[in-house]
């Protein structure tokens, strides 16, 4: 089992390296530079700046230095936020984004799976149709529409929850953003679970379980659930990707000081190192998620284990 994990890990590192490399060279290939928006500076000062940021070295040297720094955990200085290094910005913003994302993922799983189960067990009933209709709503309406709507309803009309701002450890400020963020993956997971459970319930081994006189809850929870969750496990990586994408918007609207906001700003400001750093963080997270999912598969289905 350990060996399986290590093999997968070894396979993931080249992918990450490719992403870092491609991103790096893409950034450097861009016309113009990070200082273009500034007022035109006298050439000597430009030269000094270039030198200070290491931009005058040959590109391979820059690449090498960047990689070396990366391994030390140093993402370089931000070109726009002059007083901060990217590492500091990441350290500030990452916990916020992580909290946001994890809570949203947890909501999606812990509400989505039971909802799907419920719909499957009450197949073709009014409750089933109602749940699935809600799921379509959750899937179709984009996060950046849902969040303001929720904010209007709960924040402005009902005054129950704050619509923006952030205090460390404050659940109230996270309530609406995580709800909005969780909604699309939640809906998808519910649909997925329902379909998968219905399929599993028609399997011969479930018939055997009933024939053995086992009570319904045992059949569902012990015999049906794990096989039924396989598609949900497969969906985990796209789910995290979806939450990452959504967090960009949610952080902007709700004014949460996470790294998503930096990414968007970095794009608009053409802040190379910042964007590069963010992309690496996000990619690492995704790849890490992929590894976790592989482990999850092995637990769910013994046939996968080596």
């Amino acid at each position, binding site marked *: 089992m350990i060996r399986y994990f290590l093999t997968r890990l070894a396979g993931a590192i080249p992918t990450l390296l490719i992403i870092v490399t491609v991103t790096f060279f893409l950034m450097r290939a861009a016309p113009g530079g990070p200082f273009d928006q500034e007022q035109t500076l006298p050439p000597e000062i430009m030269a000094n700046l270039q030198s200070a940021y290491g931009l005058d070295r040959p590109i391979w040297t820059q690449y090498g230095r960047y990689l070396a720094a990366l391994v030390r955990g140093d993402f370089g200085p931000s070109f726009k936020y002059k007083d901060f290094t990217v590492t500091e910005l990441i350290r500030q913003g990452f916990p916020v984004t992580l909290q946001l994302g994890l809570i949203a993922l947890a909501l999606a799983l812990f509400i989505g799976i039971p909802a799907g189960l419920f719909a499957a067990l009450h197949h073709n009933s009014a409750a089933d149709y109602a749940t699935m209709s809600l799921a379509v709503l959750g899937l*179709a309406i984009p996060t950046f529409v849902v969040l303001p709507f929720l904010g*209007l309803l709960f924040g402005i009309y009902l005054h129950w929850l704050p619509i923006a701002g952030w205090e460390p450890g404050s659940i109230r400020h996270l309530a609406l953003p995580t709800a909005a963020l969780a909604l699309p993956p939640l809906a998808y997971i519910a649909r*997925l679970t329902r379909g998968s459970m219905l399929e599993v319930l028609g399997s011969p081994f479930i018939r055997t379980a009933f024939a053995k006189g086992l009570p319904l809850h045992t059949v569902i929870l012990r015999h049906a659930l794990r096989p039924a969750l396989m598609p949900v496990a497969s969906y985990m990586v796209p789910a995290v990707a979806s939450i990452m994408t959504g967090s960009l918007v949610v952080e902007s609207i709700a004014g949460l000081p996470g790294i998503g906001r930096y990414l*968007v700003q970095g794009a608009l400001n053409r802040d190379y190192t910042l*964007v590069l750093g963010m992309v690496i963080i996000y*990619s690492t997270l995704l*790849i890490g998620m992929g590894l976790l999912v592989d482990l999850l598969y092995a637990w769910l289905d013994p046939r996968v284990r080596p």
Partner: protein
Amino acid sequence: MSGLTDDAARRLRANPAAVFALYVILALVALALFGPWLNPNSIEALDWLHVAARPGLQSAHWFGTDRLGRDLFVRTLAGTRVSLGVGLVASVVSLVVGLSYGAIAGYSGGRTDHLMMRIIEILSGLPLIFFVILLTVVFGRSEYLLFFSIGAVGWLTMARIVRGQTMSIRRREFIEAAVASGANTRRIIVKHVIPNVIGPVIVYATLSVPQIVLFESFLSFLGLGVQEPHASLGTLIAEGAGEMESAPWILLVPGGFLALLLLCLNIFGDGLRDALDVKEG
């Protein structure tokens, strides 16, 4: 030509939700295209007398106005036109790129195919927005980039589908005959492979419309999409979000439009998928 067979069409017609959704979509599109004739206000005109006015059927501005006094009804319809227009162009881009890529991969087979599919595998794992952001940083914001990025929403799966179909067609006799008779590869692909692949491609393109519209609005919302003076629904929603506390309708009107459009597109897409019995996921 494969695709929507009679059986599938009948199943689709029997699905009340899908049919209703289709009507709503057509109504919204019609409204977007012909609506401005119903309302004399122009997109640009700033009505200083009615800044941030509430919606009201009696007033000159049915859906109210925004912070600059622009009529929301007309602006929303214009935004819908932009969203749909960009979406359409992007779909075509996606179709062309995916079709070519998939056809080449499927036709070539062997190591070319393997490599091309590997690339798709790596690309599929990563969220599109990051690519768009990278490209935006590199190339700045431009219209072509926008079409390309949004087009990128569907091309991966499209390429996969086309490749699969191409591979199965490749092995059929008439292709062998064409190759034997010396026709060049490009001609074979264009004349034989593509017509046979068109069916599922059209279906998939239709099914990916909601994602494309969604992505376009998403980009515009973040400020990475359509630029001034054009405004898509996403841009309008971003404006509205800023005015949420004082003038919520600036958000609600375009937001409601987009939500309704996407909802119906999804419901119709689901119905289409059910009718064709395509597996989800």
